[in-house]
C-alpha cells in the first residue's frame, strides 16, 4: 500500500517505561477508512502502543506519522488536537461530570449540538435518558458508550479504542458492534485493541498481531479469519472456538 492510503504509520517504535523496554521496534500501518485490529495476548504491549501513539509514554526511538506528519515527541494534547481521539481501557470518562458535561467538554471546536449530536444520540440512546446524571453512576456498558460518544463527538481523523468490550455482557457487546459499524460507515479510521475475537472478526478490516513488544503478523482480517492454523499459532486459540 502506498503512503497516501495510510492514516497512521509506525516505524520501528521503541518505548521504555521505568527502565523496562516495553515496545521493541513496533512497525505497522493503519489504513485510511478502515478498522485495524491490534491483537495479542495480555501484556505484549498493545496498550503501551496506544499510549505511545497518544504521547503519554513518549517513544525513545522510531517514527510515528499521522497523515505523513511526524507526531512522535509531541505532547498528548497536541496529538489530540491533530485529530486523534482516544478511548482508554476502563472507559475514559469523567465520573464526577454529568453525561452532558462529558460530551460538552470534548466538543472543543463548535460546541455541543446539531446533527453530530443527533447522530451520536441515535447511536447511543441511553445517553439521552441519563443526560443529567453524573457519569460515575452509569452502568459499565453505558460508561463505555459514553466514552466512545465522547471520543467521536468531535469529528476525528483517527479513533484509538482500547478493549471496548472488556467486562461487558454479550448483549452490550452486540450494541457496541452495531455502533462501531455505524462509525465505520462514516468512514472513521479506527485502531482497536480487542481480545473479543467475535468482535474483532466482525469489525476488523486490517489486522496486526503483537507479541513481546513486536509485531508478529500484519495482514487482512478476512485472510486471518479463514486460517485456523495461523490463529492458533499466533494467538493460541481459534476464532471459531471463541465465538
Amino acid at each position, binding site marked *: 500500500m502506498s503512503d497516501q492510503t495510510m492514516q497512521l504509520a509506525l516505524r520501528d517504535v521503541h518505548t521504555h517505561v521505568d527502565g523496562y523496554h516495553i515496545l521493541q521496534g513496533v512497525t505497522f500501518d493503519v489504513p485510511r477508512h478502515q478498522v485495524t485490529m491490534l491483537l495479542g495476548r495480555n501484556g505484549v504491549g498493545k496498550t503501551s502502543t496506544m499510549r505511545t501513539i*497518544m504521547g*503519554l509514554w513518549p517513544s525513545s526511538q522510531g517514527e510515528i506519522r499521522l497523515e505523513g506528519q511526524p507526531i512522535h515527541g509531541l*505532547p*498528548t*494534547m497536541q496529538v*489530540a*488536537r491533530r485529530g486523534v481521539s*482516544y478511548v*482508554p*481501557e*476502563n*472507559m*475514559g*470518562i*469523567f*465520573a*464526577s*461530570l454529568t453525561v452532558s*458535561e462529558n460530551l*460538552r*467538554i*470534548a466538543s*472543543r471546536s463548535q460546541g455541543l449540538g446539531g446533527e453530530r449530536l443527533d447522530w451520536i444520540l441515535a447511536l447511543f440512546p441511553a445517553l439521552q435518558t441519563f443526560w443529567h446524571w*453524573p*457519569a*460515575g*453512576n452509569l452502568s459499565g456498558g453505558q460508561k463505555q458508550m459514553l466514552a466512545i460518544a*465522547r471520543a467521536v463527538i468531535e469529528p476525528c481523523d483517527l479513533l484509538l479504542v482500547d478493549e471496548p468490550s472488556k467486562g461487558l455482557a454479550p448483549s452490550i457487546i452486540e450494541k457496541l458492534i452495531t455502533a462501531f459499524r455505524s462509525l465505520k460507515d462514516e468512514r472513521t479510521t479506527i485502531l482497536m485493541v480487542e481480545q473479543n475475537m467475535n468482535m474483532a472478526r466482525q469489525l476488523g478490516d486490517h489486522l496486526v498481531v503483537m507479541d513481546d513488544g513486536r509485531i508478529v503478523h500484519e495482514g487482512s482480517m478476512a485472510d486471518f479469519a479463514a486460517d485456523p492454523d495461523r490463529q492458533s499459532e499466533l494467538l493460541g486459540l481459534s476464532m471459531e472456538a471463541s465465538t
Partner: protein
Amino acid sequence: MLQALRDTLPANRWIRLVLLAIVLGVIFTPWLFDGTRALDTAARLSIFVVLAASYDLLLGFTGVVSFAHALFFGIGAYAVAIAFDHFAPGFGVLLVAIVAGLGVSLLVAFIMGLVSLRVKTIFYAMITLAVASAATVLVSQLYHLTGGEDGLTYRIPKVLTPAFKLLDDKVFGVRVNGKLMNFYLVVFSSIVLFLIMVRIVASPFGRVLKALRENDFRAQAIGYNTLAYRTTATLLSAAFATLAGVLMALWLRYTGPESVLSLDIMIDVLLMVVIGGMGTLYGAIIGATVLMLAQSYLQGLMGNAQDVIGGVPILSELMAPDRWLLWLGLLFIASVYFFPQGVVGRFSGPAPKEATT
C-alpha cells in the same frame, strides 16, 4: 448567574436551608445579635468564606495542595496596611493598594506555579510550605515596612470608622455609623466575590478544572493544555485570597503576622474546606461557619457548661474553658469521621467512583 447558582447549589434541601440561614444571619447580624463580638465574628466569617472558597478553587477543583494560600491573604492585607500606614487613608489609595497587592500575589503565584506545578501533590506542597515560611520570616525582618512581629495599626477612610455618623437616629435600634458601613462593605464584597467564584466554577473553564482534577491525562487526551488550566486556577485562587486579605485589613484596622499570615490561618482554611466539603465551593460557607462559631463561642459555652455541672469531678475538669481546644480537636476528628467528603459533599448524592486510567 442564576443558571450558575442552579447548576452548582447542593441538591439537598436541608443544606440549602442551612446556607440560606447562614447568609441571612450574617447580613442581619447587627439586628439579630447584640454586641461588637457578634459583628466581628460575622465580618470575619464572610472574609473567611471567600478565603476558604478560593482555597477550594485550588484544592477541590484542581487537586493542587498548597500551603502558601495564607501568603496571598497576607499580601492583600499588607498591601492595604502599608498603603494606609504611609499615605492618608482614602479610597484612591485603597484602589492602588488593591492593584499592587493583586500584582504581587499574581507574580508570586505565577513564579511558584512555573517552578513547581509540573510536579503535582507532595512536592508542590513542600515548595509552597517553604515559600510561606520564608514570607513569614521576611515580614518579621522588614520591620520598617511591615512593623515586624507587632504588625501595623493604621487609620482607614473616615466613612468606615465608628466616628462617622450617617444618620442621627438609630434604625430599629442599630446605630448607622461608619462601622456599619465597613461591615456591609466587607459582607457584600464577600458575597460578590463568592458569586464570581460560583460563576467561574459553573463555566466551561470550571468544567475543565473538574475534569483534570479527576484525570489529568484524559483531559490532555481531549486536547486540553492542563498545565495552563492549572496555572490559571492557581492565579485565580491567589487573586481571590488577596482580595479577602484586603477586606480583612479594612475590617481589623490592624495587620500583623498572627492575624493574616500565620500557619494557623492556613490550617484553619484547610479545615474549613475539608469540613465543608472539597470541590463544592458552598462547603466553604458551612466549614467557615462551624470553625468561626467554634473559635468565637466554644470557650464561652464551655464556661456556662462548667457552671451547670460544677460539682461533677472529672466532667467539670473536662469542661473547663481552658480545654476548649481539646473539644475543637474532637469536633474535627468527628467531622472527618462522619463526613469524609465534608458536610456538603456528604449530602450531595453518591460519590463518583475513583478513576484510574
